[in-house]
């Protein structure tokens, strides 16, 4: 009830201002609003701050906690650096949509009840679709429609689940639950759809790479990580999530290995990384939740960094396929180095942010004595280096000489990449600087000589495997089928078949049907339309004299009176 600014509102206002403003003023809005938002995020105290009465419910649009501020901070930071990266190159409507999208994500962070959460959830779905469409190509339009269908469907599932919980428990509070009945299962499924969990993981790698070079930077950050936050708030320790997370981890690696498009490789590796977080939420211990939150923070930074370096390459060369790229390190040193720093971070190399955050998750698995989970996570860490850590920079910047000699990144894109690169290293070198902001007390020491050595062996020998098996990973001009084949091809063909059968049926029985139907149409026309030789109006279509009308009304009314007294 204090007078203060809801952080999400600042970005919504900014999103409105980006359109009408011009020149310096617009730049000031794009670069200033995220900073004010960050300030506002840190003004939110713990606990429910504002309440609004809506119908019978007490809505809590802003509720603070360490965890919520932590996620909101990285979303705010992402908006600032993303804005810096994009403000001179992106179209204004893409930037406006990006800010509204970020506002939705920050709104979810502070949502104190399920209704607010749902509203901001849909807000994100709408504006992220606009970003996909801003890609401007026919493929982007089609992918945007598929993306919107998937997210609106997910939204409906979530909404039905929320309504079920509200009806059966009478509470709209956001509190930890387990998937024990149909309501909570629907909420869980609705959230997992946004986390790109199986079997719908394909929406992510389908839509993100079709957006513009700047758009994919925004897209990479918010949707899946708000889903992780929602999972932490609602389903900590839900055992199903361990399996779902491990599946996502392996799925991301395998599909990224098969992929030819540079941004699609990165998109698959989002699924892989979110899998680590989902798995951590499933483990559910304090260490695991800390790990999920810390890893989400670090992940947004290095994943945006990777998408930025890929974005610069596409911006400068117009190409995104590994088969077309290669040898760009000669003329793009800044982009190459920043891309490599992002790649090392995602691979959790010692001295990068990935090492100080991801190893929390595997330590949590060992603390809980989960042998299989630990070994799968470790194998996956090796696999991340394989599919993202080396494959991405190798095929884009080194490999063969593509003959292209593009210029390096424009100054604002370079600045954005350098800020995020510095953060990747800072978080890797000074982990104690951010451990204090995590939701639980951190009792974790990232750098132990034995552990560093273990990870160096693991990663360097993964690198050896990459270069020895390079011939097996020759890029081909292909895409890989996914579960979305069932609705993009199977259902499409089934629909077409149904139409064909229907046509056959009509041709076979059509003449009989037409005879019956035309008799009805003639009757309708006789009473309601104009028909006949003199184009006479039907009984209900023609104008009646006033006297006749008055007479009929009198008859009706008197009949009514008689019937009433009978």
């Amino acid at each position: 009830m204090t007078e203060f600014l809801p952080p999400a509102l600042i970005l919504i206002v900014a999103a409105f201002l980006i359109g009408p403003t011009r020149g310096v003023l617009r730049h000031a809005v794009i670069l200033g609003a995220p900073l004010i938002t960050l300030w506002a995020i840190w003004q939110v105290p713990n606990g429910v701050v504002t309440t609004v009465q809506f119908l019978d419910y007490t809505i809590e649009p802003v509720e603070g906690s360490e965890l919520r501020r932590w996620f909101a901070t990285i979303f705010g930071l992402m908006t600032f650096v993303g804005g810096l990266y994009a403000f001179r190159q992106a179209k204004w409507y893409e930037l406006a949509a990006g800010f509204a999208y970020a506002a939705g994500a920050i709104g979810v962070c502070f949502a104190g009840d399920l209704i607010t959460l749902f509203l901001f959830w849909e807000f994100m779905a709408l504006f992220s679709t606009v970003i996909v469409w801003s890609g401007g190509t026919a493929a982007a339009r089609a992918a945007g429609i598929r993306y919107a269908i998937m997210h609106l469907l997910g939204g409906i599932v979530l909404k039905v689940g929320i309504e079920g919980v509200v009806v059966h428990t009478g509470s709209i509070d956001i509190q930890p639950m387990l998937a024990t009945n149909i309501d909570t299962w629907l909420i869980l499924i609705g959230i997992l759809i946004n986390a790109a969990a199986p079997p719908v993981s394909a929406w992510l790698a389908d839509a993100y790479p079709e957006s513009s070079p700047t758009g994919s930077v925004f897209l990479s950050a918010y949707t899946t990580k708000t889903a992780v936050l929602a999972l932490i708030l609602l389903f900590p320790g839900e055992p199903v999530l361990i399996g779902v997370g491990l599946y996502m981890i392996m799925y991301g690696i395998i599909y990224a290995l098969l992929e030819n498009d540079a941004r699609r490789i990165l998109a698959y590796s989002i699924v892989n990384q979110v899998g680590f977080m989902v798995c951590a939420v499933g483990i559910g211990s304090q260490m695991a939740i800390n790990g999920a939150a810390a890893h989400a923070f670090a992940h947004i930074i290095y994943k945006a960094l990777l998408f930025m370096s890929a974005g610069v390459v596409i911006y400068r060369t117009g190409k995104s396929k590994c088969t077309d790229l290669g040898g760009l390190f000669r003329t793009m040193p800044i982009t190459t180095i920043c891309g490599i720093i992002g790649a090392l971070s995602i691979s959790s190399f010692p001295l990068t942010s990935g090492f100080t955050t991801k190893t929390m998750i595997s330590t949590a698995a060992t603390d809980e004595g989960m042998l299989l989970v630990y070994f799968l996570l470790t194998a996956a860490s090796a696999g991340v280096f394989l599919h993202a850590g080396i494959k991405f920079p190798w095929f884009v910047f080194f490999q063969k000489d593509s003959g292209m000699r593009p210029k390096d990144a424009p100054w604002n894109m370079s600045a954005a990449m350098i800020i995020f690169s510095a953060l990747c290293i800072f978080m890797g070198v000074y982990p104690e600087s951010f451990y204090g902001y995590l939701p639980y007390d951190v009792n974790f020491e990232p750098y132990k000589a034995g552990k560093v050595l273990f990870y160096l062996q693991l990663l360097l020998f993964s690198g050896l495997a990459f270069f020895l098996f390079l011939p097996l990973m020759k890029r081909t001009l292909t895409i890989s089928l996914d579960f979305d084949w069932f609705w993009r091809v199977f259902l499409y063909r089934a629909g077409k078949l149904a139409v064909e059968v229907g046509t056959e049926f009509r041709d076979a029985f059509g003449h009989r049907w037409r005879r019956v139907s035309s008799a009805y149409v003639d009757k309708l026309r006789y009473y309601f339309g104009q028909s006949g030789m003199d184009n006479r109006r039907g009984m209900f279509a023609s104008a009646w004299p006033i006297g006749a009308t008055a007479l009929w009304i009198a008859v009706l009314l008197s009949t009514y009176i008689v019937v009433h007294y009978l």
Partner: protein
Amino acid sequence: MNQNQDDHWLVRPASIRLLWKLFWAVLAITVALQIFIEVKGYFGVDGWIGFGAAFGFGSCVAMVIVAKGLGYLLKRDQNYYRAEADDD
């Protein structure tokens, strides 16, 4: 494609050979260091000498081969979905 003498240092065959030698040396050192630095095994086996190296290498080879195998099943021409839509 590296015939040009004036091409970048990184892509000359001589420097690539040198990089490989350095890489092998670093690999050997990371395993050898385990004689001096104890790696705490959480489940016993992961504390063995060179376990990280073997596990990393082995799981990557397995993933590459699984991906290759699945590729035969899942890979389609890059215009696959477009061709489907243009079919009618």
